């Protein structure tokens, strides 16, 4: 039902834009960041993460308004919502959920296709350090924080670096409690 809901929202309730435009814009942002930080790729990764975080804390509002989904009972449900609804609605992709930890608080998202990295070839010096799509980790971090889930999100592997697949790891640290105003 989550998959059907995600597809229904994508088809009928989402205004779409050409994916190449999105890809080229993101590519120009990353290449400009590399120039601005004089090819210090750890700083570029941090900046992409921060940008993604700022997007995520606002994007969650749009997501909840579109889907009207209730609170998830556990991380399993959360992972399904992320992969079948969130990624579908915003990027029209459905990553696979895999590699669950024994306590079911950590999982991996395997991106079979990634519109951010279409037609991208990393330069040799960036291949070891740059996580090209790190904005996605920031978005997930920010969005989950707004629904009281303090998570660590990071890249495990990326096809742009020659790895067999693109994998993002999501690990729940703790459930946040709302602070009651004084």
């Amino acid at each position: 039902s989550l998959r059907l809901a995600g597809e229904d929202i994508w088809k009928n309730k989402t205004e779409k834009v050409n994916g190449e435009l999105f890809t080229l814009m993101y590519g120009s942002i990353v290449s400009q960041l590399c120039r601005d930080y004089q090819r210090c790729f750890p700083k570029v990764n941090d900046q992409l993460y921060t940008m993604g975080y700022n997007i995520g804390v606002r994007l969650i509002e749009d997501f909840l308004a579109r889907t009207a989904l209730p609170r998830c009972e556990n991380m399993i449900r959360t992972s399904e919502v992320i992969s079948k609804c969130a990624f579908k609605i915003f990027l029209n992709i459905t990553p696979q959920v895999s590699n669950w930890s024994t306590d079911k608080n950590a999982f991996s998202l395997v991106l079979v296709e990634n519109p951010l990295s279409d037609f991208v070839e990393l330069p040799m010096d960036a291949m070891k350090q740059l996580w090209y799509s790190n904005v996605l980790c920031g978005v997930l971090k920010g969005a989950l924080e707004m629904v009281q889930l303090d998570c660590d999100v990071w890249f495990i592997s990326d096809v742009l670096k020659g790895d067999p697949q693109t994998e993002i790891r999501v690990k729940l640290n703790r459930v946040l409690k709302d602070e009651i105003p004084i």
Partner: protein
Amino acid sequence: PQYFVIIGSKDNPVYEAEFTTQQGQLQQGFPQNLKELNPFILHASLDIIEDLQWKINPNSQSGNVSGSGGFLRSRNVANTDNCYLGKVDYFYGLVITAYLTYSGMKLVMVHGNLTGDVQIDDNAVKAFYQEVHELYIKTLMNPFYQINDPITSPAFDSRVRALARKYLN
């Protein structure tokens, strides 16, 4: 054999390759003295190519041009494949063909023949240029590639050579 170059908007070589032909068991390229002249031969044809590039009149009668004439003839002609300029120059039995991309990159090739006069199959050469143009567009889509940078990707080189084997030999 052919000598193929992609020339940037500042007349800088972006990509160079020599394609050899199979003669029995041997790969035959240009003779050594001609190999050194190829860049100069191509460079000499740039004026003609640029003249065609900015020519508005589609019915060009000048020079050694065969094919469809000026680059801007799409204003008057309904077809869309006007990038291929055909044979633009000759040099002692060698033929120079050219193709212009929409951003002004010049794909130029010297066609040699070890035995006699050069026979150009326009359709095959045009198809080769169009496929290389597509590869170039994919290179441009890479955000880490700056326009006019040399193309050093081994994947690009191997694909261009495969296209040359398919269309030119």
